[in-house]
């Protein structure tokens, strides 16, 4: 009995040693891949930072209103944030590549899913950035146009446009990422429909008199105001 136990233990230790000896080179390969990956990711980060600085990405980000958001959240600049993102995506990619060398079958599927997810993540980020840029541009354009025609709720109009475009961009981002796709679609459809319906009701029923007054003022007194309010600039 004692001999059997000793034999089994010896066998188990041998198996463990063999298994370790079998995995050790793979582990070393994984560590080498992770280390080389870190260096490549670091180089990519430096490269991305230089390209973003050369292309004056920070100005674009400022125009999009992203810089303001990041400052409020006490986060680094958009250039730094994006270059860090490049670093982490590249390094995590290399680490997962290294893990796949270990040959653990259960992890293989998750690793391939991660690599398939990367292009979608990139597209989502691009959509988010240009969405914010469009929201900022159109809200400012609306604000300027409204102020220059003396529209009373210029800021409200501008903020509404910014929110609508941002929500639209966000819903597209979630759709691309495949996160809560149906929930987002329903939420967006409901919110958008509700806003439009409430506006229509507010203007058609609640603001009937205001609308009449507004139209009368525009049509009847526009000429008088024009003569009294403006001088020929040229």
């Amino acid at each position, binding site marked *: 009995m004692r001999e059997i136990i000793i034999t089994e233990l010896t066998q188990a230790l041998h198996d463990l040693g063999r298994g370790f000896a079998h995995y050790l080179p793979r582990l070393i390969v994984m560590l080498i891949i992770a280390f080389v990956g870190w260096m490549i990711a670091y180089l990519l980060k430096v490269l991305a930072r230089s390209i973003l600085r050369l292309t004056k990405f920070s*100005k674009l980000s*400022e*125009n999009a209103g992203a810089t303001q958001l990041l400052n409020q959240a006490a986060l680094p600049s958009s250039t730094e944030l994006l270059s860090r993102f490049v670093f982490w995506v590249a390094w995590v990619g290399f680490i997962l590549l290294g893990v796949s060398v270990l040959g653990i079958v259960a992890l293989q599927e998750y690793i391939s899913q991660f690599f398939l997810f990367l292009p979608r993540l990139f597209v989502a980020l691009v959509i988010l950035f240009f969405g914010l840029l469009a929201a900022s*541009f159109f809200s*400012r*354009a609306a*604000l*300027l*146009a*409204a*102020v*220059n*025609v*003396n529209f009373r709720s*210029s*800021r409200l109009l501008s903020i509404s446009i910014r929110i609508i475009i941002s929500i639209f961009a966000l819903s597209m981002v979630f759709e691309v990422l495949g996160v809560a796709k149906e929930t987002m679609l329903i939420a967006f459809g409901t919110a958008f429909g509700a806003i439009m319906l409430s506006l229509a009701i507010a203007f058609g029923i609640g603001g009937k008199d205001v609308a009449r007054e507004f139209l009368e003022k525009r049509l009847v007194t526009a000429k008088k*105001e*024009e*003569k*009294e*309010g*403006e*001088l*020929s*600039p*040229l």
Partner: protein
Amino acid sequence: MPMVGASIDDVWSVSKVYALRTLHSISTRYASSPEPGTALRTILAAADLLRAKACVVISPDSTTIEPDWLQRLVRPVYNDNFDLVSPIYRRQMFEGVLVRNLLYPMTRAIYGYRVREPYASEFAISGRLASDFLIKEPWNDERTKAGTEICLTIAAITGNYRVCQSFLGPKARPDRSASDLVAAMRRTVGPLFSSLDSNFPFWSTITGSQPVPTVGAQSEVMLEPVRVNRKRLREMFATGVVQLEPVFRSILSASTLSELQRIATLEVSEFNYPADLWAKTVFEFAASYHKSVISRDHIVQALVPLYRGKTLTLLLENRDGFEEDIEKNVESLCGDFERLKPYLLEIWADRK
């Protein structure tokens, strides 16, 4: 003498009355109403084709034109070898406010020439300037298409062509609505700001300004009373300053913005937008336009409410004014623009 007009059909019908000899014309029809730049390009191309010694352009809006205007415009080119004859008009006291408060003082301070009407609707140019302008100007550029008139004046100055002015007579009052102010800004202020980029080596070394040879009166003002809603102007200025604060924060310096915010709280009776602050504001807008801190078109539009504030100050300053006082105020404003030009150079180079 070949003569080319802006609206060939109209000039042809008018010209027939005075024609003693055969008149030759090149006429063309546009598919739709063309941009002023496109129309002017066609006119200059026709002048170039005819190898014209002089080319006169008359605005189709000009309802006060007299036959001797053509003579006054063309003679300096034809007899005295000038390349650009810019007009001087007799204006109503409060008309042409943008020209008097921004275009003239800024062009004068930047380019060093006292051209009273940098955005001329009637003018004459020599054949060589027409050909040169036709070749050098980037005609596909949106700013050139919209503000060719001011681009032409600047091209004549920066190209060292001989520029003079000729007094014509009363300027017709265009019937403009409020929205036209933004369009007018785009046609004039946009191209003026834009010209600073390409002409930096030329204007950065210029200090002061020199008079331009002038035929006839230097300026004439009609002192007719005009009804203007001052309260509305103040309200539009104050609303603009409050509502556009986030936009102004990226264009103006903190000191200028706080000063504007203080002015926005003043009532009409005590309202005053000082000339030096106006000059500083315009220069900060020009520098921001150069750096494209936001969309360039948005920068030009953001100037509109501030211009209304300056207009109100002009109305209040000159409500009992005489012609001499108005002229003195314009001169003083030009002096401020010239004095603050080093400030423009300073903020122009500033990378922030």
